[in-house]
């Protein structure tokens, strides 16, 4: 069942280790920028909490806490399946790896579906202040700020997840061809880092928006 595992050396690198480390370091550098991108939103959320504590509590109680919690669990499971794909890629078990990758993509899609349902619920409950229509907390102006941050943060995270699932599907298709693990095993490793990090961001988003002092 096991295939040989390795990577193909690119022209401008001198060793495989160098190439592997470079890819990993490059991805970590990218993850730093992702973290700081979301950190700006967390900072906004914190400042709004400081300036309008009561309004934020009011707005937070209108968020769909249980959908958020379920979604966190879904992403934690997807983290597990991604880890599974990585460990199987290391031992060259391609068929198992592919199944885990598809499962990861499915869980990511499930997250997005739940998220879409949550947005729909928000819409039905008039929790979408920027659309022309009633806003249930219209009497409390400052609550809009927090709801705005909620939508921007979750949408930005959603964009990352959509990108992630798309790349994952392409990668799965590539990996389904023979000799993939022989040449490009580190693509799975590097992609896994990205997926884990999107999950990690959500693990911060969930408490920051839904849980803290709701």
């Amino acid at each position: 069942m096991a295939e040989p595992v390795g990577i193909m050396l690119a022209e401008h690198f001198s060793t495989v280790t160098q190439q592997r480390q470079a890819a990993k370091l490059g991805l970590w550098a990218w993850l730093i920028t992702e973290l700081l991108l979301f950190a700006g939103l967390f900072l906004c959320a914190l400042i709004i909490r400081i300036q309008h504590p009561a309004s934020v509590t009011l707005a937070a109680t209108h968020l769909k806490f249980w959908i958020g919690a379920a979604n966190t669990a879904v992403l934690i499971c997807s983290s597990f399946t991604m880890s599974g794909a990585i460990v199987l890629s290391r031992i060259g078990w391609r068929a198992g790896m592919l199944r885990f990758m598809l499962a990861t993509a499915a869980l990511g899609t499930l997250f997005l579906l739940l998220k879409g349902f949550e947005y729909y619920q928000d819409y039905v409950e008039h929790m979408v202040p920027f659309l022309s229509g009633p806003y249930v907390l219209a009497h409390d102006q400052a609550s809009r700020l927090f709801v705005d941050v909620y939508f921007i943060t979750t949408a930005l995270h959603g964009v990352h997840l959509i990108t992630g699932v798309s790349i994952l599907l392409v990668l799965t298709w590539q990996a389904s061809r023979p000799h993939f693990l022989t040449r490009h095993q580190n693509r799975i490793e590097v992609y896994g880092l990205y997926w884990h990090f999107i999950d990690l961001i959500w693990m911060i988003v969930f408490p920051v928006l839904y849980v803290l002092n709701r």
Partner: protein
Amino acid sequence: MARGDLRVLLRVLRVPALTLAALLALLAINVALGATLPFRNVWIVEAGVTACMVAIVLLVSMDILEETPLIRLFSSIGFFWLLIMFGMTLTDYAYR
């Protein structure tokens, strides 16, 4: 699936499965705290639990424990910068 395959699968999936269990347990704590709000300033506990979850993902799922010092440095530098950003901004908002 052959018996040997299953044994291999269980062996390599041990750590991911333990991680999964730990993360779900921590999430359960946070959800329970968030749903019931048992005491004042419960956010301190919730923030601590979140920090644990983040640490587990970083250290175990993302293999920081087994990485070179360079990668470890790069994985922590972003969080350090976050402290700078939040700390310095709070010298404004907390003392206005």
